[in-house]
């Protein structure tokens, strides 16, 4: 194999290892209302159908085990079942999830 190609493969392997580590360590999946127990900026994952959507300021509420968890977002929202990724964020003494990504069911 040519030296340059080998170097490209080496760099790619490095970034793939980094991404695999990220995939295994983040995000934490939560199934209850324990978000306030996580430190600020922890990545979290919620799965379910939004029960309430507010457009301004954009906010989405997921119901998990009969407990509502609120997430703040700048993404366009829909009622479809989705997985949301976000970081724990405290605002006016309330713990929210600040949404970083939404994956709707296709």
């Amino acid at each position, binding site marked *: 194999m*040519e030296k340059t190609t080998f170097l490209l493969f080496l760099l790619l392997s490095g970034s*793939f290892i980094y*991404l*695999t580590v990220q995939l295994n360590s983040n995000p934490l999946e939560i199934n209850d209302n324990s978000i306030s127990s996580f430190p600020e900026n922890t990545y979290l994952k919620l799965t379910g159908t939004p029960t309430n959507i507010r457009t301004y300021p954009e906010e989405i509420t997921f119901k998990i085990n009969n407990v509502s968890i609120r997430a703040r977002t700048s993404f366009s929202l829909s009622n479809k079942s989705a997985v949301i990724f976000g970081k724990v964020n405290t605002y006016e003494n309330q713990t929210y999830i600040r949404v*970083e*990504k939404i*994956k709707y069911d296709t």
Partner: protein
Amino acid sequence: MILEIFLSLILGLVCGTITGLLPGIHINLVITFLLGLTFTNSLSLPLAIFIIALSFTHILIDFIPTTLLGVPTEENYLSAQPAHRLVMQGKANQAINVAFLGVLMSIPLIIVLSPIYAFVLPSLFEFLQEIIPYLILLMSLYLIFQEDNIISGILIFLLSGILGFFAFDLPVKEPLLPLLSGLFGLSAIFSSMFYNSTIPKQETTKTKIKLTRFLRPLSASFFISPILSFFPGIGAGHISLFSAQIINPSSKQFIFLNSISSSLNMALSIIAAYSIQKTRTGTSAAILHLLSPISINILCILILSIIISIIFAYKLGKLICIPLISIYNKISYGKISLITAIFVILVNTFFTNSLGLIILASGTLIGLICQKIGVRKIQMMGALLLSTLLYYFL
């Protein structure tokens, strides 16, 4: 309302020209930004028409940076190589004008295929839905087995697929942006910076193109595009390649084939959003989001908007093409490439997060490896296809 629609068309034309000329900016990025804003319901139709005008103008104008800078997108990356051959002969103007003609000639095909897509597709879709994953798998395997070195083809398909999986499953902001910018954009700029330091001066005289030379790609696109357009993960690149298998096109015919497929694929995805409520492009997803459920009257307005947008974009493209080539002739190619690379990196830094930048870097490495080991860029569409296949089969 008519005034609002007209203004939306003009605004979409202007914005599509700007985004089309800026390398590395994808239509989906603009649409995501737009949908994040709050609009009243009465603005849904004008906004949908704005998105249509923006998308089709972007598709057409995008062939200018693709040809001159060698910075393709996932739609037109296959035409970058034949276009580059013409650039090396000083014929960038011809390459761009052939691409423009392709987009313009998608109009008659849109008119003929729209009713079929709107009324026949729903009855076929239930059956087709069952076989979609197997057909995608077959198409992917067919294209891999067309490679001179099959192992290298599989390797690039899988590497891109794994990267796509990472991009969609990690909290990467705007995952498509770094993924596609890396695989198709930045890698192409870097390799052109390394290998093509001298580009000849480009002709700036008006060029005449005979439509009769493009009747074969026109008819191939007519038959292949409607069959492949509603497949998830399948884009204009695949449509062009499968059409090329039938007609064995010249460089110019391939550019024409790719541009007509890009435009037709986009138009049919919007009609599919009406007929089967499935979205295959960011544009169709945005339109369905804004107008759902789409009525037949609204669909007619949307098709009319597509046709008007293409005609206006064609005229505008012809107008700005030669002045832009004249400017291009005055600046060194190395400098343009460097500025473009910095711009693409800045766009990604602004719109995505740190994980997105790792995806961008990895995509660039895969793109460079793909060129180094002589595999066709179509294999990098594994980035979308592998995730699609995993979704269906797992």
